[in-house]
C-alpha cells in the first residue's frame, strides 16, 4: 500500500464514488419514469405507436453506451446557437447533465423491456378474473396486474442497476469526475497502478451491496407466495 497516494487521492476517490452513485440513482429513477410509457407503447394496439416504441428500444439496445454519450455530449456542441436561443445551453455544456440524459435514455429502453416482459408474464387468468369481478381496465392494471408485474420485474431491475453502475464509468471519458474519472486522474499524475485496484474494490463493493439488498428485498416481498 502506498499511503502517500492513498492520503492524497483516497478522499477524492470517495467523492468520485458519490458522483457515480448520483449518476446511477438519477438515471435509474428518471429512466423508470420514461420506461413505463415506452413499455405501454410497445404493447399498444396502435401499430404506429408500437412500432415507434420498438424502433426506439431496438436502436438504443443495438448501439454502445459510449457512442451514445459521445453523440449527446459532443453532438450538443454542434447545436450551440440553437440551444442558446432556447436557453438550454448551460445544461448541455455540462458533462454531468449530458451523461445523466444519455444514461436515462439508455436505461429507459432496457427497463421498458423489463416491465413489458413482467406485465406479459402475469398469468392471463388474473386479469380475466378481475374482469369478471367487474373491475374497470384501469383498476385491473393498477390493482391486479401492476403489483404482480413489479415483483417479476424486481430481479431484472436489480441486474439493470448493476449494469448501470458499471456502465456509468464511461462518464469518465467525457470529463466527469466519477469514481472512474478520479481514478484515471490519479493514475495519470502518480503512475501508481494501485489506484486502479482500489477502484476495482470500490466497484465490487457497490455491486455486492446491491446484490445483497436485492436478495433481501426479493425474499421479503415474496414471502406471501413462498411455500413454507
Amino acid at each position, binding site marked *: 500500500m502506498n499511503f502517500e497516494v492513498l492520503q492524497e487521492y483516497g478522499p477524492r476517490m470517495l467523492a468520485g464514488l458519490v458522483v457515480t452513485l448520483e449518476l446511477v440513482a438519477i438515471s435509474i429513477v428518471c429512466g423508470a419514469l420514461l420506461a413505463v410509457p415506452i413499455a405501454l407503447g410497445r404493447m399498444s394496439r396502435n401499430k404506429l405507436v408500437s412500432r415507434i416504441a420498438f424502433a426506439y428500444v*431496438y436502436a438504443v439496445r443495438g*448501439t*454502445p453506451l459510449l*457512442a451514445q454519450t*459521445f453523440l449527446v455530449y*459532443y453532438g450538443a456542441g454542434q*447545436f450551440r446557437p440553437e440551444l442558446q436561443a432556447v436557453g438550454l445551453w448551460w445544461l448541455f455544456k455540462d458533462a454531468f447533465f449530458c451523461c445523466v440524459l444519455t444514461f436515462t435514455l439508455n436505461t429507459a429502453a432496457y427497463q421498458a423491456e423489463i416491465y413489458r416482459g413482467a406485465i406479459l408474464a402475469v398469468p392471463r387468468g388474473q386479469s380475466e378474473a378481475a374482469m369478471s369481478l367487474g373491475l374497470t381496465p384501469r383498476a385491473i392494471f393498477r390493482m391486479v396486474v401492476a403489483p404482480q408485474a413489479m415483483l417479476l420485474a424486481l430481479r431484472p431491475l436489480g441486474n439493470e442497476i448493476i449494469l448501470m453502475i*458499471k456502465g456509468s*464509468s464511461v462518464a469518465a471519458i467525457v470529463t466527469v469526475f466519477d469514481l472512474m474519472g478520479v481514478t484515471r486522474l490519479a493514475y495519470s499524475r502518480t503512475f501508481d497502478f494501485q489506484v486502479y485496484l482500489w477502484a476495482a474494490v470500490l*466497484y465490487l463493493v457497490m455491486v455486492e451491496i446491491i446484490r445483497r439488498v436485492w436478495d433481501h428485498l426479493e425474499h421479503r416481498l415474496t414471502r406471501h407466495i413462498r411455500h413454507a
Partner: protein
Amino acid sequence: MDLIRLLSFGPDGWGDELAAGTWLTIRLAVATLPFGLLLGLLVALAKRSHIRALRVVGNAYTTVFRGLPELLTIFIVYFGGQILLQRIVEFVSPGSSVEVSGFVSGMIALGVVFSAYSSEVFLGAFRGISRGQWEASRSLGLRPLATMRLVILPQLVRLALPGLANLWLILLKDTSLVSVIAIDDLLRVTGIAVRVTKQPFFFFGVACLLYLVMSMISSIGITAIERRLGRGHGRTA
C-alpha cells in the same frame, strides 16, 4: 449534400477511414470470441469440479469480472499488463523495453469479461444435459475426454446458443470501450473525423448506425445458426 460528401471514399471523404474502423471493430470482436468461449468453458468446468479449490477460484473469477466495469478491466489489463511484461523483460534482458499492443490488451480484457459471463451460460447448459448422457457414454466405454468431445459438447452448444448470442451482441458493443486505449476502432476513427470536420452529431450518428447494422446482421446470422442447430429437435428458433 455536403454531409454525404463527407462520407465518400477517397481523400476528402471519411468513408474509407470509417470502413477501416468498422473492419477493426469486427476483427477485434471476432478475435475475442474463441478466446472468450474457451476460457468461459474452462471456468465453467472449474465451477463444476469435484475439487473445492477450483470451484472457489472459478466462482471468485466470475464474481470479480462480472462486477467490474468493462472499462476498468480494460485499463487494468492494459496498464497492468504493461507493467507486468516490462518487469519480465527487464528480468530477462535488462535495459530493453516493451510496448503492449492495444489490440491484444483489448482482446484479453474483453475475452476475460466475456468468459466470466459465458461460464454462467455454460453452467446452465450443463444442467440441461441429463445424467443419462454421461452414464450411457461410460457404459459404451468412452473415456471422459471423448465423452466431452463427442457427446456433451455438441449438445452443450445448442443449449448455450441463445445465451451466447446475447453475449456476442454485448461484446460487439463493448469493443467501443477499447477506443480509449490506443486502437483505431470505429469509435476512435469517428472521433478523429469529428475533430477534423466539426460535425460531431452527424459522425457519431453514423457510428451509432454502423453499430446498429452490425447488431442487425449478427441477429440474422444467429437466427440462421439456431435454426440449423435446432434441426431434429422439433422446435425451430
